[in-house]
């Protein structure tokens, strides 16, 4: 594949999106459940790369740059691992183009 089009660094990619930061985390993750999960599909499926595996087999997550799409909780088949709601009104992602 042509390297020219692979050139967008993920942080640069995310810097094109506006977010209004909420104090409250609208995602919560039960690390104990994640440690027993071998698939950890959320890690590669989340389009904003919010889920990062830790060395002890758990998951770290960041809610601040969430697209609010719902992919994480739809693909997660470990009961109760990811709790996901919307950020408080007026907060979170603000798409300019959509």
């Amino acid at each position: 594949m042509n390297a020219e089009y692979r050139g967008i660094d993920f942080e640069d990619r995310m810097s094109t999106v506006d977010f209004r930061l909420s104090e409250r985390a609208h995602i919560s993750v039960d690390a104990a459940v994640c440690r027993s999960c071998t698939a950890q599909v959320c890690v590669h499926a989340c389009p904003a790369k919010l889920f990062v595996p830790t060395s002890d087999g758990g998951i770290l997550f960041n809610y601040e740059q969430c697209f609010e799409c719902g992919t994480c909780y739809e693909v997660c088949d470990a009961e109760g691992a990811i709790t996901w709601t919307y950020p408080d009104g007026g907060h979170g992602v603000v798409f300019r183009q959509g």
Partner: protein
Amino acid sequence: MSDPMFDVVVVGAGPAGSAAALTAARAGRSVALVERGPHPGSKNVYGGVVYGRVLDELVPRWWEQMPVQRWVTRRSTMVMTDRQALTVDVRAQAWGGPPYNGATALRADLDGWLADLAQEAGAVLVPSTVATGLLRAADGTVRGVRTDRPDGELSAGVVIACDGVNSFLAKEAGLFGGRTGARHTSLGVKETLALPREVIEERFALRGRDGLDMEILGCTRGIPGGGFLYTNLDSLSVGVVVGLDGLAACGVRPEELLADLKAHPSIAPLVRGAELKEYSAHLLPEGGYDTMPELAGDGILVAGDAAAMCLAAGVWLEGVNFAIGAGMYAGRAAAEALARGDTSRSGLAGYRRLLEDSFVLADHRKLRRAPGLVFSERMQQRYPALLCDLAEEFFRVDNPRPKPGLRRLLRRGAAAHGVRLHHLLSDALTAWRSFG
């Protein structure tokens, strides 16, 4: 229970919600339109094309007002493999004049315009507010919504849930029964790429406000899904849509698929030099008719993505038009039920009848088998490769050997790609039943 604060509370100021609020307000009803984003459209993403004819009923000469980027006068369907591409390209200049066919538009503009129309008709827009749950009477009838504002209960005669693909309200109301939508949900990732207007017009052979809508099959590494490329005035919308099951199983990151598509020999020259303006992602309900929830409950209606009213039939990718149609009929059915004083499930049943009589459910019922066909392994992998090979061999000049006939090429290609004649026939029959 005391008198409700509003006749109708609509949740979600997308196309379905604004059409519902506009219709109910025009019928003389008091309407609140609750939107969780700071302004309509701020939480919404779509491919980028809207088919506006449904607006004929709502906004006379809508094409003179709608915030359009380009009118779609060119529609391409491309099938590809890693090294090949075969395109059917349709150009219809009539689509570039009234009453128009399709248009590219940005959701921030489009959703804002529709919500403005609802407000002009008297609906009250309540932005930056999340509907966190349903209010119910003792008998379970829906009587309004709770919100995340202090003292934020909004009571209503009818709630119209247009709260999008994740519709927590339709789920809470029990309209999905025990079913889960995950099997039939896709993830779309999109880049909006800036390019000067003249470059777009030259590169895509367009003039003035003419635009291109290109749908692509075979660009997702075999994961069920597809891609698209649409022209805006001075930007392109390029994206891929993949089924969540397939994405979960494959271990590939979504933006990698998008990078693949942009690097493909047939796409790279089209996006060359373009600068990323915005990266976005959203889920789509793509299961069609057979995955729709109950559309009415006691005191509640559901419309748009919340009711899975998205059509993913390969050559036809539509959603906003179904949302506007469904919202319009939901608003009308709610107003009629309120006028009769019966907002029970049976009092609201007129909604489904209106949808059955219109393109919303007629098209979805007609195309109920299309998602299964389009997402099948043969349609996703074998047929694109077979068609590309067939075209490449058919047009290859291989002198001094004599030209092989199409029949021989088809037989050879089918064998090479493991396509059996009876599969081809049964898929053709399914396609004929859907599209014919």
